């Protein structure tokens, strides 16, 4: 008997007798994981979260979530004899008197930054490749909630040490809450247990930070992974990859080993960062007091856009009938991220409605093949990016020697104009790349060999695109049915009734915008501009909505049953 046989004979039998595991676990072991570098982004977020749980647990053993005032008598000499909260004193204690405490604190903080950064990039990947499409809308929505919760979790986490920087963050949070019309003042008083700062906020944030939000995150991440597992992975277009299969290496032993290694690799990188890159040295900031502040106060990066939105706003406040409406505070606090999150949440549904595309998608889009989506994504990145940079405008002004107010004025314009320019430029670039692909397919790869014909003319030799690359280039995303048109090509035809309503017109225009330049025609003469639907080449096969229709490769005849789109 070999080693594995022995193990299976004893342990395997014991478990299977009780859990019926041979069937389900075998399916798990043979689960196929498609490979692409961008699929690692979600894993980075997941593993950062696990590292956050591990290091956070160590920190709770030593942290005192209390605002009771004490006089510091610990090892850090410059603060000896200073009055401070127990929370701050215990954080100093973790840093200076607990072996490995500083390392745990720094890994925890770096892991939080990596967690948020990985979520952001992961969401961008999912957006730009269209991975959010049916059947994965739930996971997209869960992702948005996870990102929002992550922001809150981070804000509450870095508020806990009660140092000068974190207290300033809390003061801003309180000021923003207070500005909410009608309920703001009450909300702030209930949250802080009275006037700011009070003695309740740290213990309350603590239980939210270590129990409530991590519990929610854990539940939602589990749901996220369960859905992903159940629906199977998406894959990049490529040879042999269709909407009806998953191509890749199995879980056992390949993915298991790779992902385990990746987890350890992330842990190693975070340990290295925490060894050499100091983060949040709270002992330099001193304990919080409401009269003090340091110049260049910056929140963690994922709060930067909110900070920038607050900075960019003009002083707009109304007093009506004895009440104050502080537009200058609650608008920047709620609207910009509100637009991004709400827009992101609605987008999958808007897109499928506008395209009339109700089929399942398991092969990802190359961003260039969905120019409008890609352009919208870049516009959102630009909008967020301008706000984010403006959140550090004082630092940028100091570094680049630009007057601060000039920078704010630039940002005020850029936040509107930037996204428009980004949209336009991105769309052009996508269309250009599509044309390049079409050219490659039609005329092949340049070989660098020039031949002279008997007639004396010179021609350059090309060879056809190799099969593997060809499969990528030929993958055509448009399997969507054509919507009924408001203005049919046949001038005598009567427009379909559903296109004449208000909603129908909106849908028609959206459809035109979204499908602009989407399809590639196989002969390479597809137009970059305009709507490829009408040009006779590669008109997409109709896959219609409502019924579960699994498209075949290349969209050649999936089982639609002729329902009109819109079901």
């Amino acid at each position, binding site marked *: 008997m070999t080693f594995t046989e022995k193990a299976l004979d004893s342990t395997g039998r014991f478990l299977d007798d009780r859990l019926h595991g041979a069937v389900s676990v075998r399916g798990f072991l043979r689960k196929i994981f498609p490979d692409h570098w961008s699929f690692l982004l979600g894993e980075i977020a997941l593993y950062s979260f696990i590292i956050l749980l591990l290091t956070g647990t160590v920190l709770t053993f030593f942290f005192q979530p209390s605002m009771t005032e004490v006089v510091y008598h610990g090892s850090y000499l410059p603060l000896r004899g200073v009055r401070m909260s127990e929370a701050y004193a215990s954080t100093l204690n973790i840093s200076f008197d607990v*072996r490995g405490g500083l390392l745990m604190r720094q890994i925890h903080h770096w892991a939080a930054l990596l967690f948020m950064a990985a979520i952001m990039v992961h969401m961008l990947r999912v957006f730009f490749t269209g991975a959010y499409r049916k059947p994965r809308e739930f996971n997209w929505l869960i992702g948005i909630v996870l990102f929002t919760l992550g922001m809150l979790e981070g804000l509450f986490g870095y508020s806990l040490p009660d140092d000068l920087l974190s207290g300033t963050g809390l003061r*801003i949070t309180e000021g923003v809450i*207070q500005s909410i019309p009608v309920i703001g003042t009450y909300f702030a*008083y209930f949250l802080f247990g009275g006037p700011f700062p009070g003695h309740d906020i740290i213990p309350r944030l603590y239980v939210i930070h270590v129990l409530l939000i991590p519990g929610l995150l854990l539940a939602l991440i589990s749901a996220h992974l369960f859905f992903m597992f159940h629906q199977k992975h998406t894959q990049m277009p490529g040879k042999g990859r269709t909407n009806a299969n998953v191509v890749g290496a199995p879980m056992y032993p390949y993915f298991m080993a790779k992902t385990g290694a990746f987890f350890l*690799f992330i842990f190693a990188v975070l340990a*290295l960062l925490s060894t050499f890159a100091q983060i949040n040295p709270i002992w330099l900031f001193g304990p919080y007091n*409401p009269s*003090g502040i340091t110049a260049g106060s910056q929140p963690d990066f994922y709060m930067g856009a909110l900070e920038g939105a607050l900075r960019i706003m003009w002083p707009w406040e109304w007093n009506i009938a004895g009440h104050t*409406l502080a537009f200058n505070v609650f608008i920047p606090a709620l609207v910009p991220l509100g637009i991004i999150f709400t827009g992101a949440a609605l987008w999958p549904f808007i897109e499928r409605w506008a395209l009339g595309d109700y089929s399942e998608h398991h092969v990802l889009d190359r961003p260039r093949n969905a120019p409008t989506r890609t352009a919208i994504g870049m516009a959102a990145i630009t909008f967020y990016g301008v706000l984010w940079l403006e959140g550090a405008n004082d630092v940028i002004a100091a570094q680049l020697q630009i007057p601060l107010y000039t920078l704010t004025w630039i940002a005020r314009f850029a936040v509107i104009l930037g996204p428009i320019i980004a949209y336009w430029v991105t769309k052009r670039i996508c269309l250009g790349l599509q044309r390049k692909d079409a050219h490659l397919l039609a005329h092949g790869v340049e070989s660098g060999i020039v031949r002279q014909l008997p007639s004396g003319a010179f021609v350059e030799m090309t060879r056809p695109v190799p099969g593997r690359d060809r499969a990528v280039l030929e993958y055509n995303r448009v399997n969507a049915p054509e919507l009924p048109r408001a203005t049919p090509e046949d001038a005598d035809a009567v427009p379909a009734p559903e296109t004449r309503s208000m909603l129908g017109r909106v849908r028609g225009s959206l459809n035109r915008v979204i499908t602009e330049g989407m399809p590639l025609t196989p002969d390479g003469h597809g137009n970059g501009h305009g709507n490829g639907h009408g040009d006779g080449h590669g008109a997409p096969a109709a896959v219609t909505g409502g019924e*579960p229709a699994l498209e075949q490769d290349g969209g050649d005849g999936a089982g639609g049953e002729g329902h009109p789109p819109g079901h």
Partner: protein
Amino acid sequence: MSDTNGTHWDEPPDEPAEDEPRGPYRVIGTPPPARTLLGEAEHASAEPVVRELPAGPDDEKKAKGAERIVATLFLVSLAASIVFIAAYVVLPVHSLDNVFRSNLALGLSMAVAFGAVAIGATIWVKVIMPHVELVEKRKPLASDREARAAFTQTFNEGAEASGFTKRPLLRRTLIAASVGLAVAPIVLLRDMGPLPGTSLRHTVWRKGMRLIVYGPNTPIRPADFAIPGQMITVVPDGYQDNQDALAKATTIIIKFGPGQLVPDTPQNYGTKMNWTVDNIVAYSKICTHVGCPVALYEETTHHILCPCHQSTFDATRGAAVTFGPAARPLPQLPLGVDAQGFLIATHDYYEPVGPSFWERG
């Protein structure tokens, strides 16, 4: 499986185990070929077992070399773990230098311990494990018609048996009860804090209360604060360590030269001159935007700047806003001098300090 008919592992189920032909790359998702874990091994049938994964590496020679490298890396990791433990035991903390040294040793050994296994395992996968690409079939996620019909039936039967649809009285009273269950616990949140009342409208400043210089904790005479262009932070006497009081009452005083302050007129923002003493003017230090302390003062322009969001106030003109998101001037504190010649407040702020709130008006 075995549990359905009580058979033992040694007696494999008597259903035909495998009669379908299989290619070298069996499509995943079809029924598994082996019905037992070990039955197959012990009752090996005559037909050869078709593998999905090759047993050995693509290149045995390369794998041999990789094996040595991987094993070395794993040993390096073990050594690093030992160093980590040793560093924990040997290196003291309790001072800045010691802490940094300990952090360096612990962090570096930890990174090596994790990183060596990570790199080793990656080489293992890439070089020693054979390269495979399997294809798994995807089934449509939507259930077929029969399954949906069966579900509908099950659901409807349950609804009918429970009487939930047939008995509106039960249904409606249950909904009413759930509303109560959902709403009642909310009252428990009421005691999380007091009602704001008018507390945001007032600070602890009172008539005759001395201005105490924040830090040195001493009262101040106008003569001690004679050089124009200075700004210092003051707090109300007796509240130096009361954070709740300071969050609203912290004040800045700025000394000006004669004629620099612009008086308040009905047309223009300006400084209330009768609230100043010897061209010393006092403003709330709590920004009217979201409450950061307005700690920066530029002497040449007389601008007070909030470092958080760059609201800028003109100190000569009643702290009127000149740039940034704050919508209101910093409130001015009426100043006077007491019998000993120390600066005092002659009244609380006449308007609420700090950020806007709904009831502010």
